């Protein structure tokens, strides 16, 4: 079996937003629409402002709340765990926005439907990496197979990320290393 997931290494991430830009370019997203976004960790979690980030999109949960709550069945889950949203079926009721604690589905007011990350399943099926993963210059964002790859040194619910074991989000995280602060006496 295969169970695809994003792995976010916050120690390697330099906050360049290449992942989000690659996503926008791949799908030619409308202005204002973002499927992947960079979230800086607050200073309560990491002591240096704007120095540690989580690059987040859909977490392709094992128990997706979006899929469960969608009244028109616009969401489906593939055998490899990828949660796919069909914009043609979606009627824009925005119930998934109320149900996803990770803020992944976005409402496109112009088009009247919701959109979200598809993990570039078409690219994966062709043996390619998702656009965001391919664009990451530091390898902070990678694609892993939870059934094959060793993810024992990663965490599923880091600080700054909602704790929702009932949904089982697939994304795994490597936490940023706390900086050693060296002060020079004046």
């Amino acid at each position: 079996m295969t169970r695809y997931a994003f792995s976010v290494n916050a120690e390697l991430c330099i906050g360049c937003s290449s992942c989000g830009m690659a996503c926008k370019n791949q799908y030619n997203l409308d202005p204002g629409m973002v499927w992947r976004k960079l979230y800086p960790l607050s200073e309560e979690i990491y002591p240096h402002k704007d120095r540690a980030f989580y690059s987040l999109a859909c977490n392709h949960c094992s128990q997706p709340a979006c899929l469960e709550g969608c009244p028109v069945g616009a969401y489906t889950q593939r055998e490899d765990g990828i949660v796919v949203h069909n914009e043609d079926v979606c009627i824009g009721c925005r119930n998934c926005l109320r149900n996803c604690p990770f803020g992944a589905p976005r409402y496109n007011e112009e088009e009247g439907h919701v959109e979200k990350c598809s993990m570039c399943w078409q690219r994966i099926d062709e043996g390619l990496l998702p656009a965001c993963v391919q664009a990451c210059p530091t390898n902070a964002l990678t694609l892993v197979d939870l059934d094959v790859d060793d993810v024992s040194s990663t965490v599923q619910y880091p600080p700054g990320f909602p704790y929702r074991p009932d949904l089982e989000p697939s994304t795994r995280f490597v936490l940023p290393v706390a900086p050693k602060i060296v002060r020079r006496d004046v």
Partner: protein
Amino acid sequence: MDTLLELPLILFTLLTQLAVGLAVFAALRQWVTVEGPSTRTRNEWIAILALIGVGVIAAFFHLGKPLGAIRMLANLGTAWLSREILTFAIFGALAAISLYMVYTKAPNGRLLKLTALVGLLAVFTTGMAYTGKALDAINNLLPLVFFMLTVFTLGPAVAAYFVEEKAHALLTSILFPTLLASLVVRFVVPFIWLSGNAVMNATGQNFLASPLHWLHLAALLAGLFFVRSGKNIPAWLPIVLLVGELLGRIAFFVLVVNSGANLGGVY
């Protein structure tokens, strides 16, 4: 959430819950006093149907693609929103049959009771549909409690327009304890949210800082002052309570913080 964006759902939930409240008290009066056919009863059922109709039309404006609304019954297996649409459709049909019966012959007690029960079931499904997993503060039974309190506040209050004065005692016997319960619950809940996680705390702070919340409580308090057992419900009071519930409903839709808004922050 944007108030304008949520206005259709604010109207849908409020108007349909008022319709259910009226249906419940119409059935209750029929059960307790056995009312015969009258113009007032007919007007009440016309009002119930009109409220459902306006509410449903309003709900269409919430959809990005209103023409796809029929597909909302596609996921009855897991989606409370699908179940909500189905139960409200049945409630609307039963209300239409009740109106026909009230017009042509004496009201049928069993039919009115069935209509009221299906209406309450529909409000139950609405309550479950709004327990959004992204909305920590209301990802529980609170939406159901809030909505039922609205049903049992607006139902007897607005029914006062459609009953003879001697029936006001029955209405006030339900309205007074409901107003008291609603005031206590709605006053206490935001303070409980303050002791929750960061998202719930932010929701609690939003409510406590919002005039919408306090005006809602003021309307309930006014109700408690002027609803007295054995006395008539003043004609202006249902309007005050309706405006209060509207403000409270706007607060419910606009002030509850989405968990996704805090990504990267402490939860």
